[in-house]
């Protein structure tokens, strides 16, 4: 078990099975966020803040598209099972303690977005020796870089004055989503020989 992906090949590329598993997970998570955003996005924008919905939707789609093209895919017969587990996890669930069901669902979707952009740090599992110009390496770095921007609408919404009366429910929802996403990400990494608490670099 290592803290980082590898062993890298002689050109500094990440093993294809690791690429496949990570890309599949990220496509599943960001694809789910894109679907949620597509559902929320009206055909004709009527408020300024909806422009951000449009931007978010396209950024999520960009991540999906990027990974599909940047990954060296190999057959992975465990993937269908994993994909089912992941897809089930992303299903929206109304947040407990919020009476307005529409709002409760929106909070959960935002909490999932916060967790996907905050708890998953794909560049942090790249070893320093990874080939910087490799498309997969570059894609992971780009996704992590974009995440600190893409998390902002979720932060603004979840910390907004409108949600102050239900701060505890909101905090619990975000904590739950972080725990869930973090656990799935850690399990995925363990499945390909990467452990967060391993000591070797």
């Amino acid at each position, binding site marked *: 078990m290592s803290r980082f992906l590898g062993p890298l090949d002689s050109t500094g590329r990440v093993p294809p099975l690791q690429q496949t598993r990570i890309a599949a997970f990220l496509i599943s998570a960001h694809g789910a966020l894109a679907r949620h955003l597509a559902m929320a996005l009206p055909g004709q924008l009527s408020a300024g803040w909806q422009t951000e919905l449009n931007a978010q939707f396209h950024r999520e789609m960009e991540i999906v598209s990027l990974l599909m093209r940047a990954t060296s895919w190999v057959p992975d017969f465990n993937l269908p099972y994993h994909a089912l587990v992941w897809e089930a996890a992303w299903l929206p669930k109304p947040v407990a303690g919020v009476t307005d069901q529409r709002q409760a669902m929106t909070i959960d979707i935002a909490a999932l977005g*916060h*967790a996907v*952009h*905050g708890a998953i*740090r794909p560049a*942090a599992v790249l070893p*320093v020796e990874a080939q910087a110009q490799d498309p997969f390496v570059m894609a992971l770095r780009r996704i*992590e*870089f974009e*995440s*600190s*921007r893409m*998390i*902002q609408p979720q*932060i603004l919404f*979840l*910390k907004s004055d409108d949600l102050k009366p239900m*701060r505890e429910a*909101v*905090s619990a929802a*975000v*904590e739950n989503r*972080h725990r869930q996403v973090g656990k799935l990400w850690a399990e995925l990494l363990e499945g390909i020989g990467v452990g967060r*608490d391993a000591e070797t670099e």
Partner: protein
Amino acid sequence: MAADPKVEVRYRQVNRMPFLAHGSHRIRYELDGPLGAPAYVLVNGLTQFSELWTAYRDALTGKGFRVATFDLLGQGASDKPELFISQDDQVKALRLLIGELGDGPVFLSGISFGGLIALRYAIEHGEKLAGLVPMSAFAELSPQLMLLGNALRTGLILGGTGYLQDLLLPMNLSDSWLKPLLNNLDAVKRQGWLVNDAYALQNLMESFLDFQPLTPQLASIKTPTMILNGEFDFLTPRSLHETLRVNIPDSSLVIIPNAYHAFTLEKAALTADLLARFAEDVLANRWRGNKAVWIAPEEPGGEMIPFPDGYDHLRAIPVKRAAS
């Protein structure tokens, strides 16, 4: 044990790291040095993590002190609350840690954000402390500091942790420290980048959104206090430390020559020596704060020099102080 019955304290051993628990959150800490010895508690700056105190741990335990380090909530191996991290929670975490140190004398020191948390602790629980050393610290947000903080937060949001580090390194460290590392800066930044998450750093920065100045409460700090300020500190300049000196009764201001905001990284041996000497003076009842201004030596063990009489220590050029 913590005196606050609402706060549950329990220990967990995960990968040999001990943790305290504050509510549902874990706080990673480390204790070194002999049981029952006078203790130093060291509080991290905003983007730091506890391993950065290793040189202090070695130096201070070598002089017979016990040393406590920890990661603040939102940092390093401590838990990272997802949406809100209040400074009150940081003070409670610090209280838990100090509660672990027993009844011996406790000296508390913190750098920058950690200096602020140390000041807040001293205001609320000063009776627990034998001495206080705020370093590169502040009790209020001057317009410059507030605007710099806002800009740094924007930098974090737009460019991630790496960009924040890119801004802080040249702002807070000297050319002589940076020059030999210019071709290796990514390695310098890597551990901090690995262990700190952007959203958690953002939460730490946003704990200032409802910040109220501590200045009116500084006079309540009765503990001996040595205020350390780098000569060339750009982020928290002399005027912010002057607020501490003027308002904390038993304080002295010590200017570290040729030092910037992050002098704890750059001048660890000198700073650890100053910490040890301060504690030894307090314990031997030699310490007299007198709101004096001193110039620290360039090297550990060197002589402290009183700031030249009649000159204004707030200026960067030798200007006579106005008669008061």
